[in-house]
């Protein structure tokens, strides 16, 4: 072969191989048995390689945990050069970064900017702490305890509808005496929104509008056409809030208990009289805060409730234990969030050059704190892939604020930790456990209506939860 022919062949081979392996598009990861990672090759020392395209794959959506394990074990700070970011995957590293609000600020949340506006999610340092407690305190402790009665009432109202044939929430089969329903439609989609709506102090007639705002603002975070609608929804919310704010600035509104006594002012009334930097909040700021609660309080809690029932029903012994011991709903709620949370993690940006786990990260890099992975870190939780309501290493009381571990038990990371710890943690915990407890007292012999559920790749077993929350949960049950 002449030199030119030989060269030509060498080059052509390289490009051909490239065309097959290096493309961002044509490569499809095979779907693996749950818990097993696809072999992405090894380096000269035998360390598994990690291909960043996996993050965009279907395989990763349904079976993320073995991949996170590779990251935790071999690349605790992984530089993803395809997506120009870093992934931090060990619990302790993530917790340390979250607590260091100055070193790891929250700016990358540009995702919500266009639609939600500027919220405390994007702020760090003093700017954040000044605004953080505007209403956070109204969602916890004594202030919340006062609201529990109202939460129970909302839950019961919704459950009543299941047994009302007009409502269309359930299908009833008189022959077997069984009801069938989709838990999301019949309960989980709306319940958290109703709670938030009430806590905010929106008048009941605003509820329909609330769904509109919620749906379009959430949809709008994706971009493009949806975003236009999202912006319109936000404008609408802003107009609405403006009128309420004007009203409540003059005359605060109160939440009432069953006897009609004033329990506590609603959150908008609280925000109206709040003073930051020597001045009251502008309507714009109040709207952004409300938009954040509207966004943060719905989808997340919905996912937690659906995932919890899905997991419990697939572990009948644990379901049994919970049904026999009401306080276990708390543990079940938290174990669900540890095992399969509805939020994957949070982005941060490092304010300084840092070296973390031997990796040098230049200032201003996008660093993803992977809460999913923290929750499955075997350095913290033993046998992390196992769903175990009774596990003794998970802390499941009221979430810890200043630390993340107590008496050998550790918080899960689904609410984050540190300065941005989810202020809705306690209320969503109440929604999840109280709502479910009430449900469990009104229905019995609950089963997953398997034939209506999404299946995994074998076409037989139920689809895994994977990243995020399941879409639908079909249940079959009898009335009590």
């Amino acid at each position: 072969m002449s030199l030119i022919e030989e060269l030509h062949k060498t080059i052509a081979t390289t490009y051909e191989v490239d065309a097959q392996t290096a493309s961002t598009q044509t490569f499809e990861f095979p779907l693996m048995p749950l818990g097993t990672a696809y072999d992405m090759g090894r380096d000269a020392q035998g360390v598994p390689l990690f291909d960043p395209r996996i993050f965009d794959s279907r395989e990763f959506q349904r079976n993320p945990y073995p991949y996170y394990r590779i990251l935790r074990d071999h690349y605790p700070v992984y530089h993803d050069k395809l997506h120009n970011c870093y992934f931090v995957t060990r619990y302790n590293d993530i917790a340390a970064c979250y607590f260091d609000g100055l070193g790891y600020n929250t700016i990358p949340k540009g995702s919500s900017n266009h639609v939600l506006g500027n919220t405390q999610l994007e702020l760090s340092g003093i700017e954040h702490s000044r605004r953080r407690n505007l209403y956070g305190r109204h969602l916890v402790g004594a202030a919340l305890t006062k609201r529990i009665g109202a939460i129970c009432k909302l839950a019961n109202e919704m459950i009543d509808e299941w047994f009302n044939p007009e409502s269309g929430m359930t299908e009833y089969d008189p022959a077997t005496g069984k009801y069938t329903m989709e838990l999301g439609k019949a309960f989980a989609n709306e319940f958290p929104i109703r709670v938030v709506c009430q806590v905010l102090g929106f008048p009941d007639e605003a509820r329909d509008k609330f769904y509109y705002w919620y749906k379009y603002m959430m949809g709008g975070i994706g971009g493009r056409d949806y975003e236009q609608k999202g912006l319109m929804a936000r404008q609408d919310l802003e107009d609405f809030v403006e009128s309420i704010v004007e009203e409540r600035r003059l005359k605060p509104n109160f939440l009432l208990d069953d006897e009609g006594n004033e329990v506590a002012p609603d959150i908008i009334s609280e925000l109206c009289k709040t003073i930051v930097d020597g001045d009251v909040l502008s309507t714009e700021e109040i709207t952004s805060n409300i938009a954040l609660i509207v966004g943060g309080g719905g989808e997340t809690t919905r996912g937690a409730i659906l995932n919890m029932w899905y997991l419990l029903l697939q572990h009948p012994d644990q379901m049994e234990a919970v049904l026999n011991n009401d306080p276990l709903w708390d543990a079940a709620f938290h174990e669900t969030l540890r095992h399969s949370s509805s939020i994957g993690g949070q982005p941060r940006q490092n304010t300084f050059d840092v070296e973390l786990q031997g990796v040098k990260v230049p200032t201003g890099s996008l660093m993803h704190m992977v809460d999913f992975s923290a929750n499955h870190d075997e350095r913290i939780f033993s046998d992390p892939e196992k769903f175990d309501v009774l596990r003794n290493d998970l802390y499941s009381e009221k979430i810890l604020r200043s630390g993340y571990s107590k008496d050998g038990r550790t918080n899960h990371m689904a609410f984050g930790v540190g300065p941005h710890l989810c202020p809705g943690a306690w209320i969503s915990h109440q929604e999840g456990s109280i709502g479910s407890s009430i449900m469990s007292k009104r229905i019995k012999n609950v089963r997953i209506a398997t034939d209506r559920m999404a299946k995994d790749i074998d076409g037989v077993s139920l689809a895994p939860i994977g990243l995020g929350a399941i879409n639908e949960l079909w249940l079959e049950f009898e009335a009590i």
Partner: protein
Amino acid sequence: MSADYGSPTVEHEAAAGDDEAGYRSYEVYQRERVGSPPPVKPGQLRTQDYLDDPYTLLANLRHYGPSFRDWQGNAFWITHYNDVTSVLVDSANFATRSKRWFYGLATFGRDLRNNVPFLTAQAAGIDKHAPVVAREIVEAFATRGTADLATEFAALFPLQLLGRTWGIPDADLPVFVERYLRMQRGSRWNVANQEAGKQAMLQLVSYFTPLLAARRADPQDDVLSALATLEIDGPAIDAHDVVATLLEGDHETLHGALANMWYLLLTHPDQLNMVNNTRRLVKYAYFETLRHSTPVLSGERFAKREVERFGLLIPEGALVICSAAGANRDETIFRDADQFIVGRKDLVQREPRGQYRADGLPAGITPALGTPSKFPALPVGRPRSLYAITRDIATIASHALLDATSNLQLAKGAQPVLKSRGYGELHTCWHLPVTFTAK
């Protein structure tokens, strides 16, 4: 804090005392909400849509506004001609990161590309070898009457030329090229390629170690000898430096430029005819190719500090993607920007200077193909810029092709396209079958 949390750097400790340092002001970010939503989704610019046809998406971005923030990739896209050139020449505020950094081998060897003896040897070597290599390559297929200009001409030429100018013996060339390509492919996001690339780098170090010693003992007329005898501060030049220098160069870009130029000429037969009849237009065809279909779609720069530009606050460390493809089709700069017009009147028809302009006219931007010279005139003792050199090589190679063939045209039924095979890869024509009559 846990024990295995890496300790923050000293810089971090010092600044941690300063309460103001850690957050952005509320107001600046507030501004981002104003305006209409961006026309593309974050991440869409990494999909095949973009790799196949970047120009439609980029036109959307250009019309949308001066910049687009892709928050998923921590990147700011800029697409207006004047903005892109302003960043590419602003090394005070924007830095590049070396391929070795992407490899995670930032301290591997030294990049010696800016040393004058190296530049001089490179220019001299290219001048000497380019015409010879061009002829050899064209002769290999000239009698056949058919050829694939992408693989047999455009891809081959730069690599064989590289081997000759560096002084790689012909016998070693196939092995050298294989390793070289493997090394270059590893400098991006693909981990398997990166592993293979690391191996290739080590193999190249072993290859160059004896060769470098030999050239030091007995210097020849080639680039390797210039490196072997180069005197700079610090330890003597070793094979790692040679490999680093080789890695940081962008020899393949010329492949893209040649392939795109011939793709454009062959798909515009009237222009090809014109160029064939008036050979001085070959050079203009090359300039117009850089503008119309740059093989490198964008240049990446990282903000060295927080800067407010293009209506946005760009945080320190953010990636600014300077879209050459977007800028080159800026209709406020080029008339009928989407058309391929050899010798167009609104394009500078010689080497631009610093700001990508000369004679008051803009030039096409192709990152990684040699930056235009900053100097208004060629300084004494320096070779001409890499921009000028690559232009000359492309012209020489194309002349050789025209000299050896007549009736050069696309093979019957051939429908060549320009596309990237993966994110960050050349946007070029991978197969360009032609037929011709041998002269």
